[in-house]
């Protein structure tokens, strides 16, 4: 790589380099901009899935469905007492009625629901580990004597469809990154061929004076790599600005899965590396294109 950029100035003059003068840096800038956004989306969703899965896989919810509020409250208290005694349970929290009403408020409104609809009692459980199905069964059996109608549901069960959707989006995002890489390579091939055509006469002369394919391809590699790096940095700045704006808006949205959407330091490292990877992709593509074209002439 260092040899690539150490080409003497007089050799570089053979194939004039005009920074930002042609379409190539701007095409690369757009490609890298879109790649940064797609990669950021994919990485953020990966993190969100991981965080939510970790958080929910060791949690469960006990629902006590009983129309009579007094019996329901008594059963909830007894169930909580029984659960606290079990070694599998780390933390037990009986959700107060106003919290339950807040949970269903987005769907049923903010009227005094407790008086009109028999809401179940909810007990949030944090478990010491991710339980097996057999351990869930033993939990249900333990609650049977104190709350016959109690249901024990793993919390992750509620969000499985959402996680499946986010995983699909994650793969779509990474697929887009791959497609953009292919599109970038195609743009480089077109640009390299165009440059070869433009400088066809110079290349022929250098060849006839004893220049090798490697000497000639190094000139094009350098020119296209610098175009790609410059365009990549512009795309990175644009993409990062958009990610920053979106993160501000997501933070303002509040809780839940959306709050888990974010980028950690290694995700930022990957995003920062995209222009460098783009430059190497452009360089290798340009080299293969130029050498392939030169082999067709004597």
């Amino acid at each position: 790589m260092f040899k690539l950029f150490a080409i003497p100035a007089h050799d570089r003059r053979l194939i004039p380099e005009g920074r930002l003068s042609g379409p190539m840096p701007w095409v690369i800038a757009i490609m890298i901009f879109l790649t940064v956004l797609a990669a950021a989306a994919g990485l953020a969703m990966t993190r969100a899935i991981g965080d939510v899965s970790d958080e929910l896989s060791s949690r469960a919810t006990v629902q006590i469905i009983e129309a009579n509020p007094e019996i329901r409250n008594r059963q909830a208290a007894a169930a909580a007492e029984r659960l606290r005694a079990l070694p599998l349970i780390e933390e037990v929290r009986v959700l107060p009625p106003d919290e339950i009403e807040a949970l269903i408020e987005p769907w049923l409104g903010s009227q005094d629901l407790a008086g009109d609809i028999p809401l179940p009692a909810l007990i949030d459980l944090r478990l010491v580990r991710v339980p097996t199905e057999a351990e869930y069964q033993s939990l249900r059996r333990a609650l049977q004597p104190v709350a016959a109608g109690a249901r024990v549901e793993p919390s992750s069960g509620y969000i499985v469809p959402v996680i499946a959707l986010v995983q699909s989006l994650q793969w779509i995002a990474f697929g887009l990154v791959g497609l953009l890489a292919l599109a970038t390579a195609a743009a480089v091939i077109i640009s390299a061929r165009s440059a070869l055509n433009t400088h066809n006469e110079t290349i022929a002369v250098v060849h006839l004076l004893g220049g090798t394919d490697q000497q000639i391809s190094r000139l094009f590699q350098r020119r296209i790599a610098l175009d790609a790096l410059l365009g990549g940095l512009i795309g990175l700045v644009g993409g990062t600005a958009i990610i920053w704006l979106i993160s501000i808006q997501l933070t303002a949205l509040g809780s839940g899965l959306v709050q888990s959407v974010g980028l950690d330091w290694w995700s930022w490292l990957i995003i920062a590396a995209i222009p460098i990877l783009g430059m190497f992709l452009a360089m290798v593509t340009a080299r293969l294109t130029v050498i392939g074209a030169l082999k067709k002439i004597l």
Partner: protein
Amino acid sequence: MDEIVRFENVGLRYGAGIETLADLNFTLFPGSFYFLTGASGAGKTSLLKLLYLSQRPSRGVIRLFGEDAVTMPRERLPGFRRRIGVVFQDFRLVPHLSAFDNIALPLRVAGVREKDLETPVTEMLDWVGLGDRSSARPATLSGGEQQRVAIARAVIGRPEILVADEPTGNVDPEMAIRLLQLFEALNTLGTTIVVATHDIHLLSKVPGAQMMRLEKGMLADPTGSLRHPPRPKDQRQ
């Protein structure tokens, strides 16, 4: 080395057309001076292209510096091309390089260090009378000046063979004589010279030179029959 170039039954055909060159048999000897003559379209430039490895023949054998140039792997061609200086008919100067950089190009391609090429390039510029135009680009030079830069570029690397296609076509008679004197000087140093020209007056300017004449792609002697190959210097009359 007994011979520097040998053509055996060489033919050249572009695409599916008729043969541009046919049945060429001749040998060039080191340190000799050859004129290649013939009418326009006789195949002079095509023959020179075979000599400076810009084309491979459609048939026959070409031996260059003792090696088979027809089957030579492509990767080895640059090394051989560096031993051949070429003055193209249309000059083929790199338009965005100065006269200095155009002349220095063969040395840079060969990996000569910058500090080692300053003096020879400057001397060559002075010799062709362009010492004060070293930074001028080809577009700002006259046809004759461009031709002199092209000649300087061809000889700067002290080639073993110098191939020149109508090298005096765009210069005045005085400069033409000076350029031929340069070629003779190089010839004296051991360079084999092949000059394609349709100017028969040039032939008398180099007394020791031999002549090859092309007619319709075939080698002929001045009387029109197929000519005998040129002979080494010590066998000339």
